[in-house]
């Protein structure tokens, strides 16, 4: 059901680099899990609404006012690389 090409496409979307061994392993294991999940297709859910979360909460509003925030130095304290007050990354283009 799930092919090696599916796994390679999924890895691309998820920004994962898989070696040959992992591609083979995940094709097999995900195949087994999805085969098991196919049991859901037995149920007729035509008129059943989806439940994304269980609380009867929809929008939560608050007043739009400035509140506390972390100092820049604390925000950048865990940065693998920085330049001034910015996160620094390898070249993009």
């Amino acid at each position: 059901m799930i092919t090696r090409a599916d796994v390679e496409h999924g890895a691309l979307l998820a920004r994962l680099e898989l070696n040959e061994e992992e591609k083979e392993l995940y094709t097999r294991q995900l195949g087994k899990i999805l085969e098991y999940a196919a049991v859901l297709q037995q149920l007729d859910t035509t008129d059943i609404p989806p439940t994304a979360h269980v609380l009867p909460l929809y929008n939560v509003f608050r007043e739009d006012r400035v509140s506390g925030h972390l100092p820049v130095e604390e925000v950048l304290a865990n940065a693998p690389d920085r330049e001034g007050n910015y996160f620094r990354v390898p070249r993009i283009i």
Partner: protein
Amino acid sequence: MELCDLPAHQLSKLLRDRKVSAEEICRSVLQRIDEIEEKTRAYITLDGENALEQARRVDRRLREGADLPPLAGIPVAVKDNICTKGLRTTCASKILADFIPPYNATVIERLAAVDAVIIGKTNMDEFAMGSSTENSGFFPTRNPWDYSRVPGGSSGGSAAAVAAGETIYALGSDTGGSIRQPAAFCGVVGMKPTYGAVSRYGLVAFASSLDQIGPLTKDVTDCALVLNAIAGYDPRDSTSAPGEKTDYTRFLKEDIRGLRIGIPREYLGEGLDDGVRRVVEKACAVLEDAGAEIAETSLPHSAYALPTYYLIAPAEASSNLARYDGVRYGYRARDAKDVVDMFKKTRSRGFGAEVKRRIMLGTYALSAGYYDAFYLKALRVRTLIKRDFDEALATFDALLSPTTPTPAFLLGEKIDDPLKMYLSDIFTLAINLAGLPAISIPGGFVDGLPVGVQFIGKPFAEGTLLRVAYAFEKRTGYTSRRPGLGR
């Protein structure tokens, strides 16, 4: 028994009566850690010096005559996916191995407000994905009742630490059974509160519609005390349920006469260990003797809970874990040729096998062409599962089931077969899909290993669960047993 083997409420009384100091309690816990931590490996990070300092601060205030809350001066261990300001929080992942949070989770601020003493951060399956703590990116934790067995997971470090006296109580998180299953395997009390009852602010997200923080304690009274401290509305969590604060200790009553308890027949079917079945049957008899009305009920869609869960949870995880890209915090691969290459190398080296498997599964279930067939289908079946519980709980005050199909299994027994591992959560994960509260409490032993029974309640009926668990505890006494620790 040492001080570290006592529940918080007993220690609190000793503290108030000036029979012991908070420093002595803390030293007792640290000494136990010194003795057995190399066998259990329950902790990723220990914070003993700060814990002692905090304990001495509590002692000073008690000497000055301050009236402190019940958990003041009592040691607590915190699962390593709950952010602690200035104290390394790793999620047991190499990708966060050196992450020092710049802020506290709401539950940590609430523990600080009651003068709790944080001993350290406990081991877990990486990003809470697993049922044995073998998926920790650092090392596995072992079950204090039998070191060749797993403590369960994902909150395995928290459960093992509570059982072994390496803390008095602990916080865990539960997305599909991650508090209740390890509580059952380690012979302690574990509660997953109703979705929205405890703030998730500062809990590293795994599956946001299922995750919930809860207590792991030595007995039911402690469970109520910890819930008192951590539950309640938090404006910083948009899924936090509004409502007044409750004093959960008022539900600790032995009288359960007339309480109606349903036994879902699907939870006693095939694959259930005979010993576990006998424990559940005995639990029914105990509760019936206590005056509860027990009757069989049905949750017809039970068989669909596992596949539903293993589409929804990975889908949410694949989205939540997109943030680990090596840009703002955490591990970064240094040998990348451009930014996309950096994302890929960072994530591939930083995440362990199970995390990658679930990201792949979730990405697939959400991807174009498969979204309707897998993810949306699972959300619709989730509705059916929730309705089953709504119907059963319209007739019954609570449901009773085993927490797990077997007692703790051996290290390595299931690690190569993901599906087999997932099946150890078969009795717990539907409750997260339905958002309900549930508690696991020691219900007996099979071949010297603890077995948990689970009570499931209506939304925000934690009080009913505490009441029935307390009555059960008073009539059985299993929560006062401690492991021999091979000493």
